[in-house]
């Protein structure tokens, strides 16, 4: 290798320093929130004058927090299932189909990733007002699905492109119908892509706040919307506790992804 880390001399220390600073830059706000959630002051003071678990007690005792968490979870699960199913059929079409404008269509499916979310939110809000979907679970699911689908299509298409179609052909000649061959051979072979699609779809919906603010009603709101609304009313450390739990779930999911990926590879 051109740059050998072991032979860099004192540059090594500089590199280590930069790495540590970058890690701190990324992680400190999160650690800060986690610390505040255990702080005894009710004013989000740092450093906390003392330590307590009462904000967590308050959080878990409040049915509105649990309700919004349950709403978030429901929406995220439905979005995940739909996003993976739609992502699968779309990816098969995009990878295996031979038709005009295939590349253009592929790019079109990814536009929600680059479109400013707030533009999408306003558009969906205006449209849903017309057809009465604002403030409904269906409205939430559809709007989050728009955001999640590009991630799903991207990871499943990648997996499918790396899968040799001859393997599916071999299964067909072995006597499996084209559908059976896809279920029994192709899907297990691209399971890492399907798994990534599911996780990213779930996370996209689970911590999405911009579109959700537009979709929410006083009776139906997701956890991130609840966090945001509470922050605006009073700066209680309960928000920090809720945020910490949100982060914890996300971290757990990412660890799961890493573990499953490792398992699927070997």
């Amino acid at each position, binding site marked *: 290798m051109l740059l050998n880390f072991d032979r860099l001399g004192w540059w090594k220390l500089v590199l280590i320093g930069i790495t540590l600073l970058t890690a701190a830059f990324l992680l400190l706000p999160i650690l800060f929130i986690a610390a505040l959630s255990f702080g005894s002051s009710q004013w989000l003071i740092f450093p906390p004058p003392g330590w307590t678990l009462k904000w967590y007690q308050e959080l878990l005792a409040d049915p509105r927090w649990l309700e919004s968490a349950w709403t978030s979870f429901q929406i995220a699960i439905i979005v995940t299932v739909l996003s993976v199913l739609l992502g699968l059929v779309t990816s098969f079409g995009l990878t295996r189909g031979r038709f005009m404008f295939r590349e253009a269509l592929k790019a079109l499916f990814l536009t929600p990733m680059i479109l400013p979310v707030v533009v999408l939110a306003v558009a969906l809000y205006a449209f849903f007002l017309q057809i009465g979907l604002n403030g409904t679970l269906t409205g939430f699911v559809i709007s989050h699905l728009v955001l999640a689908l590009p991630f799903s299509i991207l990871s499943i298409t990648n997996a499918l492109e790396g899968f*040799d179609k001859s393997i599916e052909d*071999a*299964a067909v000649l072995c006597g499996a*119908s084209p559908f059976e061959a896809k279920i029994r051979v192709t899907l297990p072979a691209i399971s890492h892509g399907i798994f990534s699609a599911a996780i990213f779809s779930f996370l996209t919906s689970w911590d999405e706040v911009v579109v959700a603010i537009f979709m929410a009603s006083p009776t139906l709101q997701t956890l991130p919307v609840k966090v945001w609304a509470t922050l605006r009313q009073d700066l209680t450390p309960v928000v920090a506790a809720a945020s910490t739990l949100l982060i914890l779930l996300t971290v757990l999911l990412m660890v799961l992804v890493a573990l499953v990926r490792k398992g699927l590879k070997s």
Partner: protein
Amino acid sequence: MSKPFLQIRGIRKEYGPVTAVHDVNLDVAQGEFLTFLGPSGSGKSTTLYILAGFEAPTRGDILLNGETLLSTPSHKRNIGMVFQRYTLFPHLTVGENIAFPLKVRRLPKAEIDAKVRDMLKLVRLEGFEDRKPAQMSGGQQQRVALARALAYDPPVLLMDEPLSALDKKLREEIQHEIRRIHQQTEVTILYVTHDQEEALRLSDRIAVFSKGVIDQIGTGPELYANPATRFVAEFIGDSDFLPCDLVTAANGKAEIALAGTTVIPNVPVHGKPVAGGKAALMLRPERLRLMRSAPGGATAVPVTISDITFLGNNIHVATETARGDALAVRLPFGHEAISSLSRGDSVWLGFDPASAHVFC
């Protein structure tokens, strides 16, 4: 040959303006090992894919035991196939891969287990049933693919360049395995390759494909001794070509004039001979005799030696005629001429007109 088992009747495949296969006709006997030999793009693989059902022919029919195959979808054709690329199911073990076609057919478990054991024994991979494909070498994977394709006793086994990803030594080893397995199972095999040596080693008969047409079908020795076209002559074995003039032609024999001087009668002629027209004389390098002086009475061409290469079991001598046409000669190791010849020497190359061929 007994009554045809598999018949390919006027198969044609067009992709838009391009015709990949031109009206191919072929009869295959039961238990035969037939190879489609040709360069890439000659239509051999397309023909195989039509047999497998992955491509539909523009016209023509395929009959197995007198009944058309074309109306049956791929998964019901009961045909076995080994592909060019490794196609073992990556998430299943070797045993599960071989069991797959049997499970799809819903056979009882005891029967499946017994068959998997038989198949592993056939391809000599006993003890490998719990391995994943990724833990095996390319050669082993293709043997498992062969076992999987034979597990359901297909009447016909298709092989699409199954050894092209392997190195030469391994390829030869597995060619022997395939031969043994063919003799042991007596399955009818259609094999696609662009490697003439592989075709000669394995096949009962070879169909030489060129530009979507079968130029010639025959056993290896037949194709070698009596090539029907210049393409077959070039593709099977080594060959030298000399431009010549056709004097007369009748009953498959021609009288030719070489470089305007020597007139040679009784050379087998192919194609559409026109008296007075141009033609090419084909000679096999190993059948040329190298002589120091002009032979009395024998047919011979005067040449100058341009290079001598030692190749182990034989010696390759490159020569040139007075007109500048290249002519290669292969001599057995130890040929007396070698020790005393060198570049620039003038010699004569003698040949038997009956073993030469003229292509028009």
